C-alpha cells in the first residue's frame, strides 16, 4: 500500500523569543520555545503532539498557521491543487492569505478565540463569506449544517458567545474551523474544555469527517487516552525538542524515552487497580530560557548517566519509524501505559 501524500513537512523548526529588560528594552536572552523540531503529516492522518506544558506545542502550531515567523527551519506545505509545495516559514502575509483556508486551527482557549460581538450565525458565516464559498440561502443552509454537526441547536444561532458554557463555546470554534473543509486542522487541546460526552461526540465526528473528506489533524493534547485513540503517529516534545517520534501502538506498548515513560505512568485513571507506580519527576521543569546541557531531560531522568549531562543524544531510529533521542534507548526496558481512562 502506498503511503498518503505528505501535506506538511516541518524541518528543524525553531522559534526563539527575545527577552527584553530595562528601559532600553535590551535583549538579555531568548526563550527557546521551539528548538529544532521535525515531523511529517500525511493527508488524512492524525499526528499527535504531546509534551510538558510550556514545551512549545502551541508555538509549533502557530508557526504552521503563519501566526509566528520561525527563527529558522521550514514548514513545507503541499497545497491540495497539485501546485508545488511552499515553505510557510518563508512566505509573505499576502501569499499566505489564499492558503489560510486550507489550514485551520482550533484553539486551546475557547474563551479567547471567539469574537464576543458576533452572534454564532455571524461567526460561522464569516469564513464562508470571506472566502466566497456560499451566500444567501446556501450560506444559511451551511451554517445550520455546521451548528448541527457539532451538537448545538438552531435556536443558538442568534446568541452571543458569552451566553454559552465553556464546552458549548468550544463546539462553536470547532464548527468554525470545519466551515471550509480544510485539509489540515491544527487542533490545540480541542476537547480539554469539553465534557466527556461531548468529547466523545467530537472525537467521533472528527474521525467521521476525516474518513469522509480526508482532513489531516495535528492533534495537540495532554490526554494520552485520546491521543492513542486518534493518532497514527505521535511526537513527544520536551523543552522545544523532539525526544520520541513513533507510531502509536509500539509507543504505548514500549516507550523508549524515559520522559515518555514518566508521562504514561502519570495518566490519571478511574480504575485504581490499573494505576501502577507513578514516576514523580524530581527537580524543576526544564526552562526554555536556559535549557539543560546534554540531554535536556537528564536532570530529572531516573536513568541518567554521566554522559547525559554533556552529550546531546541525536534522534535515532531504534525500530522502523520509531525515533528516540536517548543514549540508552536500546538498553532500557521501559514500561508502557496500562491505565488509560475508564471502563465501566
Amino acid at each position, binding site marked *: 500500500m502506498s503511503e498518503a501524500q505528505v501535506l506538511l513537512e516541518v524541518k528543524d523548526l525553531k522559534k526563539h523569543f527575545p527577552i527584553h529588560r530595562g528601559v532600553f528594552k535590551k535583549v538579555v536572552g531568548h526563550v527557546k520555545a521551539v528548538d529544532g523540531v521535525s515531523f511529517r503529516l500525511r493527508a488524512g492522518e492524525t499526528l499527535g503532539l*504531546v*509534551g*510538558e*506544558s*510550556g514545551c512549545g506545542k*502551541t508555538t509549533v502550531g502557530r508557526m504552521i498557521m503563519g501566526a509566528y515567523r520561525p527563527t529558522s527551519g521550514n514548514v513545507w506545505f503541499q497545497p491540495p491543487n497539485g501546485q508545488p509545495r511552499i515553505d510557510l516559514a518563508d512566505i509573505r502575509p499576502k501569499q499566505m492569505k489564499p492558503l489560510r483556508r486550507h489550514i485551520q486551527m482550533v484553539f*486551546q*482557549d475557547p*474563551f*479567547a478565540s471567539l469574537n464576543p460581538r458576533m452572534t454564532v450565525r455571524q461567526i460561522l458565516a464569516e469564513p464562508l463569506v470571506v472566502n466566497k464559498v456560499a451566500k444567501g440561502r446556501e450560506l444559511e443552509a451551511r451554517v445550520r449544517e455546521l451548528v448541527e454537526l457539532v451538537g448545538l*441547536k438552531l*435556536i443558538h444561532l442568534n446568541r452571543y458567545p458569552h451566553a454559552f*458554557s*465553556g*464546552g*458549548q463555546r468550544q463546539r462553536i470554534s470547532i464548527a468554525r474551523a470545519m466551515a471550509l473543509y480544510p485539509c489540515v486542522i491544527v487542533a490545540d487541546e480541542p476537547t480539554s*474544555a*469539553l*465534557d*466527556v*460526552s461531548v*468529547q*466523545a*461526540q467530537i*472525537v*467521533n465526528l472528527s*474521525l467521521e469527517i476525516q474518513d469522509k473528506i480526508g482532513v489531516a489533524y495535528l492533534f495537540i493534547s*495532554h*490526554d494520552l*487516552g485520546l491521543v*492513542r*485513540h*486518534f493518532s497514527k503517529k505521535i511526537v513527544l516534545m520536551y523543552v522545544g525538542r523532539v525526544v520520541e517520534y513513533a507510531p502509536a*501502538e509500539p509507543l504505548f506498548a514500549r516507550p523508549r524515552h524515559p520522559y515518555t515513560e514518566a*508521562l504514561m505512568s*502519570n*495518566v*490519571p*485513571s*478511574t*480504575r*485504581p487497580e*490499573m494505576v501502577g507506580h*507513578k514516576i*514523580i*519527576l524530581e527537580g*524543576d*521543569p*526544564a*526552562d526554555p*530560557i*536556559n535549557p539543560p546541557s546534554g540531554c535536556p531531560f537528564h536532570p530529572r531522568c531516573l536513568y541518567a548517566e554521566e554522559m547525559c549531562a554533556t552529550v546531546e543524544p541525536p534522534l535515532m531510529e531504534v525500530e522502523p519509524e520509531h525515533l528516540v533521542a536517548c543514549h540508552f534507548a536500546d538498553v532500557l526496558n521501559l514500561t508502557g*501505559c*496500562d*491505565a*488509560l*481512562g*475508564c*471502563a*465501566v
Partner: protein
Amino acid sequence: MVPTLEVQNLRVHFMLDEGVVRAVDGVTFSVRDGKTLGIVGESGSGKSVIGQSILRIVPPPGRIVEGKILLRMENEDGTKGRLDLAQLDPNSRQARSIRGRDVAMIFQEPMNSFSPLHTVGNQIIEALRLHSDVSKNEARNRAIEMLGKVGIPRPEHRIEAYPHQLSGGMRQRAMIAMALVCNPRVLIADEPTTALDVTIQAQIVELLKQLQEEFGMAILFISHNLGVVAEISHDVLVVYFGRVMEQAPVDVLFREPLHPYTRALLKSVPGIDTPVRSKLATIDGTIPEPSELIPGCPFFGRCDQCGGDSVCQDTPYVLTKVAENHSVACPLVCVAG
C-alpha cells in the same frame, strides 16, 4: 463537626428574554475540613454557576433565588457561627474580604482572570496584600515561592512575565498560585488542570492534597477529567440540568455507579481496551434547554435504561438516600427498583 461549607437547596436563575434559565435548580451538598468534593457533569449542567454563587460573583441577570450557602466562621472572639453567603450583599466589604481570603476560586478561563496589562507577579502580590498585612517584599517572596510550588520553572524570572508571555499551562498554574497564596479555607477549583500535562497535573493534585493535610482546606473540585476527579476526591457529586443526580463516596461512584447518567458519562471515555478509532459511546441528544420546565427526570429521553418508562417522566425529581453517603435521583432505581 459542622461542615466548612454547606449549600442547601440552592437555586440560581438567569432572567433572559427567551425565558428563565434555571442554571442551578435545588442543589444541596456539604464539604468538611480537609475533604474534597468532586463535581462532574456535562457542559452547561451548572457546575461553574455553583462556584460563582458561593463567591457571590454570578453575573447579572443571574440571581440566587433560593437557598442557603453556609460558611463556618471562626470569629475573632473565638465564637463560632455560620454565615449565610447567599444573604450577603455581593459588593459589601464583608463579601470582598471573604473572597480570596476565606473562599478562593481557580477559574475555568485563565485568560479572563488575569489582566493583560499587569505582570502575573504583580497581580498575585496585589491579591496577597489585599487580604493580609505583609510588606511588598514579603509578598513578592511568597508569590515566588508559590509559583515555584505549582511547578513554574525559575519563578523569580517568570514573576515579571505578562499573561500572554506564558504558555496555557503556565497561566493556569499561575492562577492556581494566586488562589492558594492566601491560604483559603475553601478552595473552588473549576477545571484547574485541563491545560496541564499529566506530570504537572499529578504534581498539582499532590500539592492540593498536601496543602489540605497541612491546613485542612476544603476543596470543591470541578472537572471533566474523571480520572483526576477519581484521584483527588473523597466524595463526588454528579450534576445535570442544575440538579444533583447522584452523590457517593469516590470508590462507590466509580465502581458501582447507580444512576444511568453517571454510567453513561463513565462509558464515554476511551480506556486502554477501547479499540483505536472505534466509535466512542456517546449520550444521545443534548442537555435540555435550561429554560424548559421538567417536572420528572431531566435525563428522560436520553437515558438508555428507561425506554420511555412513564415512571421516569412523571415522578417528580427527588434525591433519595440509598446507602450511607450515597444518594441517587433515578426513578428506576428509587421508585421502580
